């Protein structure tokens, strides 16, 4: 199945068209139980061990809403600067598909619990972009299908499917943006930054781990193009279940290029869902979107309305943690770094490791230096995330402490870190095993300095002649002789002293 899609270059697409996006993000809440029944939500259990009459949709079963699910929805709404409904209902979204044994999904339709908010997101260069939030509503996840008999588990060509309903009924919050306009060529970047910021918010609230690779957070990217200078939105496509930050950006970019190719050749965009393919970064046609009324939404008669009292809402608001953007701005000030540097820290995934290292006793500058330098390099080489490296923030803090005490210089500290990463033990164990200590024994240093001067008479003459900068070569020779274990500053002092020159 190789169908090539016509694309125009990204630059050409943006030269003619203005992209408008809408992002729908589903977050699986981390509650202990499902949204409407007491079945466990634990992951990785045997198939169909976490079901009951309610989530199987057996006749006569009555759902009761999970209080923590509602509270989490309100938390998310407040964190996204939304208004919280004084009164709202659930609705049945009717469709026939075996992933929902009830033949409807319990969702919210025209009365979402949270609406009318915004989330400020930071782009790579530190610029802030405000994404308006249309609504956040409560619903439930579907069961998991396994398609049998087709190629590589795909639904196409399958002879039958097997259903595990452990996931059916797990609380979901769907967060929908208003149309995102004015992002221009940065639209894909805005999409990625928005999903990332949202993920940080969700994690900070503690309502979900929001791990995209585990499907706990998934994004649908709606995108349309309109010719520059026009107001009316073009026909949109909806790319479903994009499951990584990088994919969100790639999917938006691909759709911009695809739409532009269709439109510029005089074609029309079909309103449809599309599937994103990680391997190629492309999308392919899914089903033609059913119209909203085909779901025949109606108020759920088995659940009573949710009417969060204003007292409860204010109580929840007062309990919200410091939100990620506020926290980052605070840390940026405390550490005295620029917006660009802070963005680099974020992009490297170094924020939490640095915070933890500072909490373990390191000063901010040193913590930042190691995580953004030596450790970032190492992570990059081994293709790991910083928090997957075999060194803990406390160990990094210990290294900075040894440097501060003068027991290690930077060069030795790098070797200690290298040793810890290689599994040789704690920083102190590596120091012992490798014999890494700054040589502060003046006798040994003096001998090494004498040797360096004797071995490099030409350089020594230059220095005597006033060329202090040449001392670097002799410092290097001493460092080499002491296998890097000398205090370079002290070595330089000794050299100048011996040769009778002063620094100033």
């Amino acid at each position, binding site marked *: 199945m190789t169908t090539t899609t016509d694309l125009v270059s990204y630059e050409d697409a943006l030269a003619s068209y203005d992209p408008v996006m809408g992002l729908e993000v589903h977050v699986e809440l981390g509650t202990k139980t499902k949204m409407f029944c007491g079945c466990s939500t634990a992951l990785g259990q045997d198939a169909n*061990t976490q079901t009951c009459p309610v989530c199987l949709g057996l006749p006569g079963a009555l759902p009761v809403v999970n209080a923590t699910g509602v509270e989490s929805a309100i938390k998310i709404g407040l964190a996204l600067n939304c208004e919280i409904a004084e009164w709202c209902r659930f609705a049945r979204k*009717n469709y026939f598909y075996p992933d929902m044994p009830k033949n409807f999904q319990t969702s919210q339709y025209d009365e979402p619990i949270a609406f009318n908010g915004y989330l400020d997101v930071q782009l790579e260069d530190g610029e802030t972009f405000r994404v308006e939030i249309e609504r956040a509503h409560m619903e439930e996840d579907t069961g998991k299908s396994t398609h049998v008999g087709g190629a590589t588990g795909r639904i196409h060509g399958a002879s039958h499917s097997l259903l*595990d309903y452990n996931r059916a009924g797990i609380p979901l919050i769907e967060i929908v943006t208003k149309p995102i306009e004015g992002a221009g060529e940065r639209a894909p970047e805005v999409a990625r930054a928005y999903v990332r910021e949202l993920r940080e918010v969700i994690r900070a609230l503690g309502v979900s781990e929001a791990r995209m690779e585990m499907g706990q957070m998934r994004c649908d990217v709606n995108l349309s193009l309109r010719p520059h200078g026009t107001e009316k939105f073009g026909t949109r496509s909806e790319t479903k279940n994009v499951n990584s930050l990088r994919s969100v950006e790639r999917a938006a970019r691909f759709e911009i290029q695809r739409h532009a190719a269709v439109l510029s050749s005089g074609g029309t965009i079909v309103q449809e869902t599309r599937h994103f393919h990680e391997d190629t970064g492309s999308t392919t046609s899914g089903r033609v979107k059913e119209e909203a009324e085909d779901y*025949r939404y109606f108020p759920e008669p088995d659940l009573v309305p949710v009417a969060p009292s204003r007292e409860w809402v204010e109580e929840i608001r007062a309990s919200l943690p410091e939100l990620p953007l506020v926290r980052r701005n605070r840390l940026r000030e405390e550490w005295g770094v620029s917006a660009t540097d802070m963005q680099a820290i974020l992009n490297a995934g170094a924020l939490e490791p640095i915070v933890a290292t500072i909490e373990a006793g390191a000063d901010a500058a040193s913590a930042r230096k190691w995580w953004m330098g030596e450790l970032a390099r190492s992570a990059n080489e081994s293709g790991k995330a910083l928090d997957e490296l075999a060194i803990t923030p406390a160990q990094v803090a210990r290294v900075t402490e040894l440097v501060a005490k003068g027991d290690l210089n930077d060069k030795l500290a790098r070797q200690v870190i290298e040793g810890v990463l290689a599994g040789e033990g704690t920083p102190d164990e590596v120091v012992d095993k490798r014999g890494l200590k700054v040589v502060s024994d003046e006798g040994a240093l003096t001998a090494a300095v004498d040797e360096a001067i004797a071995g490099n008479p030409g350089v020594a003459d230059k220095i005597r002649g006033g060329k202090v900068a040449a001392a670097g070569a002799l410092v290097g020779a001493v460092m080499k002789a002491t296998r890097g274990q000398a205090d370079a500053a002290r070595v330089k002092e000794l050299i100048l002293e011996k040769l009778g020159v002063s620094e100033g």
Partner: protein
Amino acid sequence: MPGITREEVAHLARLARLELKPEELEHFAGQLDDIIGAVARVSEVADQDVPPTSHPLPLTNVMRPDEVRPSLTPEQALSGAPAQEQQRFKVPQILGED
């Protein structure tokens, strides 16, 4: 006067996965039209000040604590399944060969 067309009934039947013969479509279109007409009379008496009722009980905020309750065993869960495989519900092909 509310009305429901034959085409709308055919559309609803398709959504509900009901196969209706042409004469049944006519038949149900007539019946549904009567029902909708009867229900529509409610709006003649209910003014703006009467909110639509979605639930007969004047209750809100019936919630349960987030505490795990025992689930069915997989055997119990699957006991009503017409077919099963690998402890899962077995369902016919979802997509046709199109």
